[in-house]
């Protein structure tokens, strides 16, 4: 933070974006705010993290995709060298994969460029204050995807599997079709289906995916 002309302390913002027009827009947007100003900018990932390290701004607004080095890589370097600098990812990409990638690299927030209105300003403030900010349209999916894993583990099985049912379970979990399981066990595909339904009922599994998860969490896929 720095003082400016006897006013309040302003947030020091660094801009990293390979699009000049975007950078210009961002700069005027940021500088239009009374509590922040742009202290530096870069058009590439490499230049961005090095300059940011030197300038030690409060927040680096980092584009996710830049030609020389991706935003995630630049963020990783920056956070390794200057951990105190906070990074706010800014992107046109809405895939949650990118969000996760940036957050994993050490970014504290993620804002979509098309939402770059009051949100960006709000995000800069939040991140600078030590919080994290993810675009609300992305946040919901992100959370659910984190919680979506391993749903099969918690449920208690309601019955012991027979030898055949176990075999069928393993082979299905290995990704074999009913017909292929039938070939391997010398039974008809229809019979395989019967075993499958029965074992699903016994183990309280709702889908093929559940079967795979169950087999995985019970170490049934280690052989072969």
């Amino acid at each position: 933070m720095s003082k400016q002309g006897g006013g309040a302390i302003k947030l020091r913002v660094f801009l990293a974006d390979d699009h000049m027009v975007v950078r210009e827009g961002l700069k005027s947007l940021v500088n239009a705010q009374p509590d922040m100003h742009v202290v530096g900018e870069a058009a590439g990932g490499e230049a961005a993290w090095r300059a940011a390290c030197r300038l030690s701004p409060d927040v680096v607004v980092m584009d996710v995709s830049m030609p020389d080095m991706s935003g995630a890589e630049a963020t990783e370097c920056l956070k390794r060298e200057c951990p105190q600098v906070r990074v706010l990812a800014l992107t046109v990409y809405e895939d949650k994969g990118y969000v996760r990638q940036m957050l994993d690299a050490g970014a504290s927030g993620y804002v979509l460029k098309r939402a770059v209105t009051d949100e960006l300003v709000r995000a800069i403030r939040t991140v600078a204050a030590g919080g994290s900010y993810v675009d609300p349209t992305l946040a919901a999916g992100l959370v659910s995807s984190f919680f979506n894993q391993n749903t099969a583990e918690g449920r208690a099985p309601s019955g012991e599997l027979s030898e055949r049912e176990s075999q069928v379970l393993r082979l299905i979990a290995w990704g074999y079709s009913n017909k292929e399981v039938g070939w391997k066990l010398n039974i008809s595909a229809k019979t395989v289906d019967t075993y499958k339904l029965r074992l699903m009922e016994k183990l309280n599994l709702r889908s093929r995916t559940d079967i795979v998860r169950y087999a995985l969490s019970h170490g049934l896929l280690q052989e072969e």
Partner: protein
Amino acid sequence: MTHQAVEGGAAGGQGNAAGRFAYAALDALPDHVTVVDARGSILAVNRAWREFAGANSPGPAGLCEGANYFDACAGATGEGAEDAARFAAGLRAVIEGESEEFALEYPCHSPAERRWFIARAKRFDFEGEARAVVTHANITARRLAEEEFKESEGKYRMLLEQASDGIHTYDARGDFIETNSKLCEMLGYTREELLRLNVADLVPPEDLAAAPIRFDRLQAGETVLTERRLRRKDGTLLPVEISGSMVSGGVLQSIVRDISERWRADAALHEAYGELERRVEERTAELARANETLRAENAERLRAEEARRELLGRLVTAQEEERRRISRELHDRMGQQLAALLMGLKTLGADSYGRRSALDTLRQLERMTDELSREAHTLAWGLRPPALDDLGLETALYNYVEEWAERARVPVDFHSAGFGGGRLPLTHETAVYRIAQEALTNVAKHSGADRVSFILERRGDHVLAVVEDNGGGFDVEAAMSAAGRGRRLGLLGMRERAALLGGAINVESSPGAGTTLFVRIPFDAGGGDERGAA
């Protein structure tokens, strides 16, 4: 000879010791002996004569001293008359000195047995008088033996002559001894000609050199079976089978069978076999040619198929390339510029100092820009999500599945595993992504499912995706055979995509039982991170 006989005999000297000795000796002889004078008067008989005469009154031996031998002969009747006359003539010739001696064999059968005798006459002079000694000896045993022999020889000869095989005998040197006429007939020689030959003369020299006549084995008592050619008198050759053996006393015998018929049959068979062989060869060659043609056609088809695949592969690559380019363009150029535009509008808004009409216009422009920005994103994402290139299959698919679930209002249970290591080849990631897209599109379009399972796993050497819905299902075979149906085309497209990379699509479904689609695409496990195009 009895004393009476001696007393009654013309010979003197009965008191003579030498004479007695002579009579005793004569009596000891088994042959019937009598002595006659020149006129045929019987001067003396020995004991055997007398005894025999007693038993055979009708025969010439019924005579005793004092009787005339010639008279007796002349008086003979019946079967013996002729013999008697002949002997009488012989005896007379002997007595008259025309011949030294005379012998005649004659039958003299009694009712009980068959008998033969030999009558001999021999002249001698006694004190100036011509005398003859006549003996009759029983030769029945010999004659019977001879007869038997003749009979058996006759039989043998008959057999020999009637035999359908040539039969001949020869000595240890191979010189012919005997032959039957069959052999003569077979070889075109007369019997006389044959008997002058040696067996070796009948065998062509080259054959003889290759297979000599095994006299050694024949003489060792073996029966030797040989198949060879014999040369006829006219020079032609006759195939025969010869069974040689030793009969007795060093005499060898061969039975020669004409096997020209068999040879002809063999030759015919051989020829037929050769013909068959030739035809089989011909047919084989034909088949080989057909096979070759087929192989060539097949290779041609394979080449065409390969070319088609390659073309398709390039098409897919080019299409993906194009989509990627446009997607990037939309994101990186249009998206960024729209973002910049939006920011400009914001700034303008902040600078407008509350002029109402201007502010309204600005808000409207901002909304339009935002709308455009979203559309650009959706468009780009639909074409080819940058995540597929930037973040990999797992993330891109997860995003897609999530977006699909939201849009189709069908929850998807997504599970993925095995993607912690390097990336798959981009071709594989793209293929799986596109197939999964198609599969989910099908689910939304056709299944009516309310739950979907999505499994994505990277295994040692292949990537596996399983999409299962609990919808209506369908008859896979019927769907594949029905022409022009959307689902079929979709399936074909997926198959084609997978096949380009050596992978396979497997669909299990039946009406009312949901549908499960399996995608397996192998990759080179060693080069997991190689980045192909598309």
